[in-house]
């Protein structure tokens, strides 16, 4: 069984982002970039499936600038077998990402595709569902647990109020939630080995996908701030203020 995992290069989750003063976007120059954390969970799950003997090959795909190749190398160091970089310097929206991935799927014919549920930069939470739609495949989003069967997969999903389990016929799409697993750190020998693993390059043009944006970004601003309030000295003062001043009790 062949697995495809999709990884995105994003601003590292520890970086406090800054909005450009002219409102044109977020400061990205000289900022630490990393693999989207939900995608790390996707790679980890794929590697575990391979270690359990349930998968034979893992292909990691990323769409982005040349440096997105480094993100693929991280996936290779974690245990993916080879990579495909779809190189573009353009901003690619989830719909176009899904179209590019659908083309890659046509060529690679994987049985299961694992993606992060959302990227922590644009927070769209769309790509996996869109890819499933374009391929006509079933989807198990926000995965908490996956159990591989014969020609099918059971995905336990994090939903409002608890968990829901769905059975999907393969081929299928899974998107990962936080608690599916804890991704491993790549060891130094594996990082060295990853440098020798194959990494192919292609482009949206070669794949015949139009990536022109459908959403026009008008402006990007800082969120409205909240001011610190007062410190109260005692529980009694707190309750009295909540009752009288704030009127919420």
């Amino acid at each position, binding site marked *: 069984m062949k697995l495809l995992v999709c990884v995105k290069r994003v*601003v590292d989750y520890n970086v406090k982002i800054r909005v450009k003063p002219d409102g044109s976007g977020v400061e990205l120059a000289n900022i630490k970039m990393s693999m989207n954390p939900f995608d790390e969970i996707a790679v980890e799950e794929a590697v575990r499936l391979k270690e359990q003997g349930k998968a034979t090959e893992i292909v990691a795909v990323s769409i982005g600038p040349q440096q997105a190749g480094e993100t693929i190398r991280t996936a290779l160091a974690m245990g993916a077998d080879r990579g495909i970089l779809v190189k573009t310097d353009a901003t690619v929206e989830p719909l176009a990402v899904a179209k590019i991935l659908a083309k890659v799927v046509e060529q690679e014919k994987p049985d299961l595709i694992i993606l992060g549920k959302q990227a922590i930069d644009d927070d769209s939470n769309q790509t996996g569902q869109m890819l499933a739609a374009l391929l006509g495949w079933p989807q198990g989003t*926000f995965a908490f647990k996956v159990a591989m069967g014969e020609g099918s997969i*059971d995905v336990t999903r994090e939903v409002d109020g*608890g968990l829901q389990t769905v059975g*999907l016929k393969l081929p299928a799409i899974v998107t990962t939630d936080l608690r599916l697993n804890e991704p491993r750190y790549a060891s130094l020998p594996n990082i060295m080995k990853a440098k020798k693993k194959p990494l192919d390059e292609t482009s949206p043009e070669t794949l015949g996908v139009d990536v022109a944006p459908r959403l026009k970004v008008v402006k990007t601003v800082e969120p409205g701030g909240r001011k*610190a309030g007062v410190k109260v000295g005692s529980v009694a003062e707190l*309750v009295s203020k909540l009752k009288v001043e704030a009127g919420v009790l």
Partner: protein
Amino acid sequence: MTTLLIAEHDNAQLKDSTHKALSAAAALGAPVHVLVAGSNARAAAEAASKLAGVEKVLLADAAPYEHQLAEPTAALIVSLAGSYDALVAPATSKGKNVMPRVAALLDVMQVSDIIKVVSPDTFERPIYAGNAIQTVQATDAKKVITVRTAAFPAAAEGGSAAIEAVNAAEDSGLSSFKGEEIAKSERPELTSARIIISGGRSLGSSENFTKYLEPIADSLGAAMGASRAAVDAGYAPNDWQVGQTGKVVAPDLYIAVGISGAIQHLAGMKDSKVIVAINKDEEAPIFQVADYGLVGDLFTILPELKDELTRAGQ
């Protein structure tokens, strides 16, 4: 020019997130129809027909929609989409699951998690865990939108829309429902509660959540929440998590107990009307967003708070 709002419901009851998403749908300025896709969901459709501003309710009542799985539900919405200029759903786990599938089938780029309708094609949405707000203009002829419900008021009752049955779309049979574990609780749901009390890792154990937080939640009729750290430590269930990767809430009163205030947590609660922080570290970032801060040991403060609330008649 009509908008179709996808209702959030459990067949028996219409969820509050529908009321809130209706306010966003109405702000698009066109008449609003509501789709209730379910099984034996007449009651939910009737509740939707009573909401002010709803022109018509479409009821698709068929077995494949019982759990509103993405594949059959998206196919249904797409079969109806021709008559609508905008398709709107609350950004609940169901809405987030189904709508991008709909958008891709229609070749539309979805606008996720809107917090404001600037004009019928222009919206504000948070990016980078709410650390920036982007205004985007959707250029596709049809709009597919999910709504961050905490950002919109609940639409009132007072309508009497007609309910029209619509045919089920074909079900591909690619997915099936296998089971669910939904926590049964007398408490209000996190996303619609008026008061929320949340605990952090400083509570130290799930027993302490029960012993110290629960009595206060009981006396306030509050929902209980938790920080990601507390959930990861196993002190509280997953679906209690408030934050960018959990639930985004905006109650009248949010009480954060032993929560330091990581960016990812603040992104989930900073729109609450009144925020109270109880923490022993007076430098904790949570105090920078709190209206009322109390510095001290939570194991001393919480029992006192319980007594004080009892005295105050809460």
